[in-house]
């Protein structure tokens, strides 16, 4: 069954703005005047409230190294391998900290040592250890928190203890940072940050809704990934972030209204799980030749807090439990309590789903009107692979066609046989009788 162009396609207009913001992030990340620390988003949304501090993530650094410069990434991984880490270590970690072990970055400049580290609390074991790498390397102060989770019904007592544990951990982090580095924390900005992030979530919700509910989809995940991290992993000015996501939402809305397609010959829609191999995003374009469009994964939808069917049959984002807007904030602890929210299991809902809402991937695929699922099996990414086989069974039961591919980890090209991967995709599409577009 040959395939022809059906819908109009157009280049995206938000590219230029995205490039500009990205460049600005790059510039601010290498601002030597600010105290450089290692940290991760989520619980440390407060990071923005330390104007003189530059708290960077080990990702997207790790995946960018692989995507931009494979020989250098390989060197980084070798540097970490010979210092004790094997292929079980997540590629992001291996790349970034391998760079530390080499002592220089991609451009040859010295690796900037971190002055402190805030570990990332996460379900993923590799994330839990994130940050320890630079503490093992050199004695810098470090702080932790926990990704609290339990199974079963809500338990108010557990919730409160978990929440207060996390409030305490965050509180201690901020106080200690002030004490050690003498930098002032902007308490007022914290509440403002919460409002900004709420706005971004709303726009993200609209974008994912438009991708999922419109045929043809106005935006593929390939395009979304180009801007995906802006405001999250690649932090820029909060107001700019909000404006940017509004711009993206408006454009996607316009495309949906006018049937401008991401893939002009769309006839197959698929979803994924977890990040793709960042160095080999070509496969999205390869699939487009079959008229197949990827609508992302629960991972890509996390920015909006995931979509779900509501009791009235409508679809909307799953709303994290929040304290009422008018809850009085008298102290820093109160603000942190507001930031963390009342449900200690919620923050990384899409990951928690693997523990407590295992069917949610099926709901997601259904909302996105997917015909199939392509699931990665990452050997060196325990958090990226947990429960994947069971997810496949659930999706198949729901009538989707599911295939896997195997590799090391999204930030590590080792073990991913690209040619074989494409062969698998050919077979998959041929099983539906699809041929490539002329």
């Amino acid at each position: 069954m040959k395939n022809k162009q059906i819908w109009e396609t157009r280049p995206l207009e938000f590219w230029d703005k995205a490039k500009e913001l990205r460049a600005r992030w790059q510039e601010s990340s290498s601002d030597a005047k600010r105290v450089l620390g290692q940290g991760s988003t989520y619980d440390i949304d407060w990071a923005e409230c330390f104007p003189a501090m530059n708290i960077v993530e080990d990702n997207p650094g790790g995946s960018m190294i692989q995507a931009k410069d494979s020989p250098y990434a390989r060197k980084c991984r070798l540097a970490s391998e010979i210092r004790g880490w094997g292929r079980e270590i997540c590629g992001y970690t291996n790349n970034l900290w391998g760079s530390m072990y080499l002592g220089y970055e991609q451009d040859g400049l010295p690796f900037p040592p971190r002055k402190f580290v805030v570990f990332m609390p996460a379900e993923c074991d590799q994330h839990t250890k994130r940050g320890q790498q630079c503490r093992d390397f050199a004695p810098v102060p470090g702080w932790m928190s926990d990704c609290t989770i339990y199974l079963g019904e809500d338990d108010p007592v557990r919730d409160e203890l978990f929440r207060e544990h996390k409030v305490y951990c965050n509180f201690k982090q901020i106080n200690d940072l002030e004490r050690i580095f003498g930098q002032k924390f902007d308490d007022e900005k914290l509440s403002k940050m919460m409002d900004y992030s709420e706005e971004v979530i709303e726009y993200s919700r609209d974008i994912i809704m438009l991708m999922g509910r419109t045929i043809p989809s106005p935006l593929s995940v390939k395009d979304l990934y180009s801007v995906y991290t802006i405001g999250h992993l690649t932090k820029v000015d909060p107001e700019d972030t909000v404006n940017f996501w509004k711009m993206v939402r408006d454009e996607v809305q316009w495309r949906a209204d006018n049937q401008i397609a991401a893939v002009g010959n769309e006839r197959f829609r698929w979803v994924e799980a977890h990040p793709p191999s960042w160095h080999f995003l070509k496969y999205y374009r390869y699939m487009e030749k079959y008229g197949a469009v990827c609508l992302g994964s629960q991972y890509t939808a996390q920015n909006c807090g995931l979509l779900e069917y509501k009791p009235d049959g409508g679809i909307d984002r799953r709303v994290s439990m929040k304290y009422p807007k008018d809850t009085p904030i008298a102290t820093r602890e109160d603000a942190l309590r507001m930031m963390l929210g009342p449900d200690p299991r919620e923050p990384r809902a899409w990951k928690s789903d693997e523990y407590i809402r295992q069917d949610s991937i099926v709901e997601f695929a259904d909302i996105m009107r997917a015909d199939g699922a392509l699931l990665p099996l990452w050997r060196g990414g325990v958090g990226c692979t947990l429960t994947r086989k069971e997810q496949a069974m659930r999706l198949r039961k729901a009538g989707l066609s599911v295939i896997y591919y195997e590799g090391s980890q999204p930030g590590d090209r080792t073990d991913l046989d690209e040619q074989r991967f494409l062969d698998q995709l050919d077979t998959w599409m041929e099983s539906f009788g699809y041929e490539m577009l002329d």
Partner: protein
Amino acid sequence: MSAEATITRGADALGAAFDFKSLVDKRHDYARAWKAKTGGKVLGWFEPYFPEEIAYAAGMLPVRILARHEVDDISDKWIYSSCYPVRDMVNQLLKGRYDYVDGLVNVEGCQWMYNAFEVMMNNRESLFYHYLFLPDYTNAATSKDVAKNEFAVLADRFKGWTGKSITDADLDAAIEVYNHNRLLLRRINELRRADRPVISGSEMMNLVLADQVMDKAEMNVILEDFIKELGLRKPGPDKIRLMIVGSETWDARLEELVEAQGANVVADELDNGTSYYWNNVLPQEDRLMALALRYLGRPHSALKDNNYRRRPQHIFELAEDFNVDGVLLEKQIYCHSHGSDMYAVWKMLRERYIPYHYFERGSLLPEDETAARLEAFLSMLKPGLNHLAGWHKKFGED
């Protein structure tokens, strides 16, 4: 030996040999017999931070789910895990090797283990399941309160399941049995510090594994007798002294291979080894808090050794106290938790000039390859080891 015989108390059941390996091999028969005799529930547990005392206080037999290799033709459908032991566990559980287990408990720890736990939740719905959150940040001021409450939740769930409340007296009795057990294991372990230990590394490992699948009160009687027997044993020959550090091991094959090369494992830092019994519960009025402090304060496993590290120093102290000549750093292939820690451990060992050999293994040891490594490592260590030249004789120990 019949299943019935295996649960006979004390040394009589084992004969003079104290065959702990056989106890491990017959653990399923043992648990079934225990169940038939007591009518109690058997609870399987996955992760090393499980507070067994609470299950014991509830009248259960807590047994550790041990990875045992057998042909695995079933787990692949359910789990993509690059960790062999976890796949072994899923394979055994799905095949009904643990059909006597009434419930399974998982503690926050390795995610592959969690995945195995989840597969079982989805496959054997009739069992009792509980996931216990124990903070990865073990040392925060609030961690102990979280842990204590998690233990209270567990006790409450047990009550809902068995219909029996756990009283303070129950907890006290359980803590006493477990503390005594750990004390006995420590006593036996101390004997490995001798220049010529009366217990081999493989015997010790089998003993600790057996300890994790048996009723502790019963095991305590065996251990008391075993200690008496050890007192009668003549010191073994002077051998190269090794220590094993790394991923959990599930049998004593590595120790046996070391022994086949004429050396001995005298120390370990393994979750299935010394870390299992290293510290005791220090009783206090608030029993659950006492338990929380014990588990948060035990020698950390790799996944819980976060922020300011404790493992390297603990490993060093063991190496020094047990006078080891070299360290075998074994890591299960794709074991991310121990993989993450290797740099810190290597660094400490190198700074302190403790020779080590690092290698990867599956749940089965590649025997010829491991033997080749061991042979080379031992011949690297051997020259210049003065204790091998009869150092102990200077102290008249012989």
